């Protein structure tokens, strides 16, 4: 069992929506900052739009908590901008994102039990 696996996710929950969206954006692969921004906008249909200041404040927090690390692997130079940094969701970050999703799922289930939500919206 690694040290990271022993670490509890509870202290980091609940997450802010913006933070969760960033983790979601990284769930299917490493991305640089602008790509994360675009992915969040796409996933939320434009409902959530992260400014540069907000995004990097989130990334700093995620890095300091060990949910995200910088990936040293870079694409070919002709496709790259050296100013970019590529972010990778760590295993711990994945566990935290999963825990947050389960927490939100529990809340949706509760809302359904109270008949607040009756239809399952298409994803």
């Amino acid at each position, binding site marked *: 069992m690694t040290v990271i696996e022993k670490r509890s996710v509870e202290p980091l929950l609940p997450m802010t929506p913006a933070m969760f969206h960033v983790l979601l954006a990284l769930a299917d692969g490493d991305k*640089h*900052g*602008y790509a994360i*921004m675009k992915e969040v906008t796409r996933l939320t249909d434009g409902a959530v*739009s*992260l*400014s*540069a*200041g*907000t*995004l*990097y*404040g989130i*990334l*700093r927090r995620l890095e300091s908590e060990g949910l995200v690390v910088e990936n040293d692997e870079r694409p070919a130079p002709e496709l790259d*901008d*050296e*100013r*970019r*940094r590529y972010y990778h969701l760590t295993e711990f970050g994945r566990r935290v994102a999963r825990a947050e999703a389960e927490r939100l799922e529990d809340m949706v289930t509760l809302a359904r039990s109270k008949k607040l939500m009756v239809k399952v919206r298409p994803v």
Partner: protein
Amino acid sequence: MSPQRNTFADRAFRFLLRFFPSEFRGDYGKEMEQVFEAQRREARKDKGGAMRLWWETIAGIFTTAPREHVEMFRQDGGYALRMMRKNIGFTVLVISILALGIGANTAIFSVINGVLLRPLPYADGNRLMTLDQTAPHSGQGSQRFSVHEIDDIRAQSQTLESLVEYHNMQFDLLGVGDPQRINTGVVSANFFDVLGVRPLYGRTFVPDDDKPGAPAVLVFSYDYWMKVYGGDPKILGTTYRMNDKMHTLVGILPAMPQYPDENDVYMSVSACPFRSNPNFIANRQARMMTVFGRLRKGRTIEQAQSELTTLESRFQKSYPDDYPAELDWTLEAGLLRTQLTERARPTFMILLGTAGLVLLIVCANVANLVLSRQLRRGREMAVRSALGASRARLLRQVVTESTMLALAGGVIGLLIAWGAMQILVDFAARFTPRAPEISLDSNVLLYCLGISVFAGILFGSIPQLGSNSNLATPLKEGAAQGAAGSRERLRSALVVAQVALSFALLAGAGLMLRSFYKLVTLDPGYKSENVVSMLIQLNFTRYGGGQIGKVRSFHDRLLERVKENPGVISAALALTFPLNDRAPRAIGFQIEGKPNTTGQPQPTFDLQSVTPEYFETVGIPLVRGRFFSYGDGPDKPDAAIVNLAMARHYWGNDDPIGRRLTTDGGKSWETIVGIVGDEKQVALDKPSADELYVTQAQNPTGETSLLVRTQQNPMTLTKKLADDVHAIDPEQPVARIRTLEQLRQKSLASPRLTSYLLGLFALLALVITAAGIAGVMGLFVNQRIKEIGIRMALGASGGSVMWLILKKGLLRVGIGLVIGLLGALAGTRLLATLLFGVEPYDPITLASVTVLLLAVAALACYGPSRRATTVDPLTALRSE
């Protein structure tokens, strides 16, 4: 490599990034620029997209940047707390030193805030003005105002509104136990309205109260009401007899600082027998009242002054007999706020400056301690730097730590200031009636916070001036390596600064203490031991109105009874006596055969009217001629005695005995029969004025003070003396029972406390500086153990090693002394107004301070230099 773009938008974005902490910028700045660049390209495709993007970006930065700063502070704060706990001894030492410096500053600022900075506790206090009518060539101070003059100013002034008149008298209040002599403020009906004072109970005065013949009403002050009636509101409506007239109590005032005097009760002008007298009202020269008012909105004090000057000229033209031209009449306006505080300002500002110097010494001392500790933390800093911490980040960490230490010191300093509050209020009360307004309010708390943060930043960042730009150096060179040259120079500079500042403080304190000593040992010209005084103001309705025989009879019978008391050596009655807090009565005169020059100010003397045993009772010596005797009766030629100052002033080396002078234009003449020694009539630090004594028998006054010299403590006889007064007149109150020694001590109280405070600050500075010198020299020895070992191995004696260390220390002290001396020469002249008998450049004081500092510094250096001689060369050579 992508070139850095430099369009306006890029520059603007880079400017916005500056709101983030430097470390954040270092980590993400370039990437954020790249992202924003991409966003701008995308935004150009939409109409209004660029504007939206800028708006969202700015909002995001201003939301996120403060959070980053707070997070960084939280991390630094947590680290600082851990370090403080780990080095608890250092932490306690630093906090204690800082608490003293910050506490002293906070305490003094609380006084300045309460007295000088706070608005007056009256409605629209900044527009309240005082008026003063003077005739400088009359030899008297303020002339005050008559009823006519007040009415004329009220009617003709366009710049002043709501003019208020005030005068203070002492009346007898009967109907409450023993007759009481009470301070009474006689005021116009709008007095409390203009000050914006609402009564606590009942009402204040209304315009109908001012009408002639109106029912007599009273308002009690809060302090008097609490002292005499325990705060019982049911006394409203009670009637009292004052001046043979019944007065009804209609109101009680709230607790408030009273202006111009602390009064027990207030009455309306129609109830005052003097003020309401038709002859008094009709006489333009019957000047008794103080006047103040409010500046009209939109008018300036300069406009008011210009108008008053015009009015005074108009009065002089219209009533030339009431304004003799040679006296040079003027009418002046001033801010009430200034009048209440001008006496206090110089002393308080000097104390604040002194406390500020102490704080600088504290900061320099603590900076040296931090610098010394930096050597031990050098490795830690180097490791953190190697792990990626920028220099700015490390500096921020160090300054956060120092600021937290300073804030902790500030909290304790605040407690020190709170503990000293009552002493400071009592001290300030000697200078200004605003003393009760001194408190630890939000301004003082902000000040304490401000100087704590300032001190923390100062002593946290100073040591960084001497730190190596390559933070990894300590890893390469090892911890035992001697301090870099720049650190050594910085430490020396801090010691020099402490010595220089301490010298300035010690010089100032030394001058004040010498000045105070001169005051204490000054011969006041009389003997104050075992003499008690009590004020007897005869009721003018029963003794006034020309009933001189009744006054003389009262005086004679009283002295006869008093002298029969066992233990009484002598007794006398006098109009005033030394250091009495009553203004002298200046009288113009003319010497026989020496007419006064027209257009020149009339000569004046301070009048004193006494019974024959006065000089013996108070202990004033006879210089030439004779004292008064009971033979100088009302049917004998008027006799006078002058003091030495007056004799020298007007007769020089000639003998004034037998010469005559007049005070009423020649209608009557006084013959000088004796010369007595000068005494300090008004204040110990003021020169003796020209004084002329006349006898009570020939010039009786309804107001006198009974003075009794006794064999034992005179306060044991006061009840008996009061009984002697009441045996003659049961309704005659006695007041102001004090010994002459109490009055002398009271006059010394302010210079005493000022010099003690300065002395305390200077002592604090000296102790801190000595500790600083000892600390630096100790470190110096530690860092040169190897060198000392080598010297001793090569044959150097203990004495030469000791001298080497001492020389190093005393060189720094010497430089500090020279700088301090120059600073003291520039700064001590600010003390000139507070000094008595001592010049600001007094060489004895400056020399004494130099010797003291050198001695203390030598003592501080002795320990480390002695320790250096005990170094074992073999051990030293093996040490790292």
